[in-house]
């Protein structure tokens, strides 16, 4: 059997699909492609074989900046004790009805 020759890997792209007009693009997966055009074509073949989308974005994975999981406490905790930001924090008399 012939051994596999060394493969130069194509860069990784993240794929976002808008399922229909009026909805946001949503992350649906990733794929390897040589360039943006090819990434779009492959994303169409891989992620929209059953009319799952009307628009696709592809973004080089390497360009995404993510929040670090270790900072989760400092980064997101400050919102935890601000329950007055939610409508249910406020008691309104029943006779007011829906507000």
């Amino acid at each position, binding site marked *: *059997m012939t051994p*596999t020759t060394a493969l130069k890997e194509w860069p990784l792209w993240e794929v976002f699909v808008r399922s229909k007009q009026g909805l946001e693009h949503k992350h649906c997966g990733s*794929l390897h492609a040589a360039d943006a055009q*090819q990434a779009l074509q492959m994303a169409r*073949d891989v992620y929209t*074989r059953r009319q799952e989308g009307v628009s696709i974005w592809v973004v080089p994975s390497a360009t995404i900046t993510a929040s670090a*999981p270790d900072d989760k406490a400092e980064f997101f905790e400050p919102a935890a004790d601000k329950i007055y930001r939610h409508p249910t924090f406020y008691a309104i008399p029943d006779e007011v009805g829906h507000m």
Partner: protein
Amino acid sequence: MYTQALDLPDGRSGALKAVAPPADADQAALQARFDARIDADGRIEPQDWMPDGYRKTLVRQISQHAHSEIVGMLPEGNWISRAPSLKRKAILIAKVQDEGGHGLYLYSAAETLGTSREQMQDALHSGRAKYSSIFNYPTLNWADVGVIGWLVDGAAIMNQIPLCRCSYGPYARAMIRVCKEESFHQRQGYEALLVMMQGTAEQRAMVQDAVNRWWWKCLAMFGPPDAASEHSTQGMRWGIKRISNDDLRQRFVDATVPQAKVLGVTLPDPDLKWNEERQHHDYGAIDWDEFWSTVNGNGPCNKERLATRVKAHNDGQWVRDAALAHAQKQKARALKEAA
């Protein structure tokens, strides 16, 4: 399409060792946080800390699953040019294309764990990595294509539905996508067999022959009995595996018996019968020696499948190189024009 036994050790790696105790207090805290999240049925995402054993198990299981999807294109691919009608050909092409897509979703999920596509492909092509042994059997007649859809994909669905709740987020999300598409695979196979069963006596005999050859191999797809399954307990603890091999196998048998009746075929097991007390079907003993022999490389098609895959990969090298060269040229040109 499939997993089988879900998590077999690869050629070199051997059995999974017990998880080593955390080295220091920091590690212990991380481990405790991980355990708490697993116990609360939470999800683990790529950036989260995870024990090495968890990561290794997932890389092995997800990559084996991906390899199975890719190699699984071959037995059915054999019949694309010989499908009995244009409609069946279009359906089969769509199904085989889906399998390629499933392989890609799964390779992508495995890559989030820090392994590369190249490493995984190399493991497959060099014969170190396992894939579902069901693909090491030949597809001898057109009814085999129907039976693969009905029984092999049916068994795969049974295995894969619980994986949609796997504790590792990217794997679970990939499986949700796969399961949505898999239902078409099973139904098209069953329907193709229904049509054959309305045909001539010879066509009906082809269906029965295919069922006879695939039935036991499908039961073996669920992996070794629980008592002999070395990875199952740890996999259950980690929320990777949700339902045991034997339980899944039983569900598959119970679901398939009425389908076989409607189709008008018999399942080739004299011991298969309803057990009123258990409220399940009893079934005969599986030939595990034959299963392990195939897993270990001695099935009828192991060498051919791997050789076909390696050839396809090597024959496609110039396409990958050309696409990369084109992309680099376009990039250089754009930079030059901007300057």
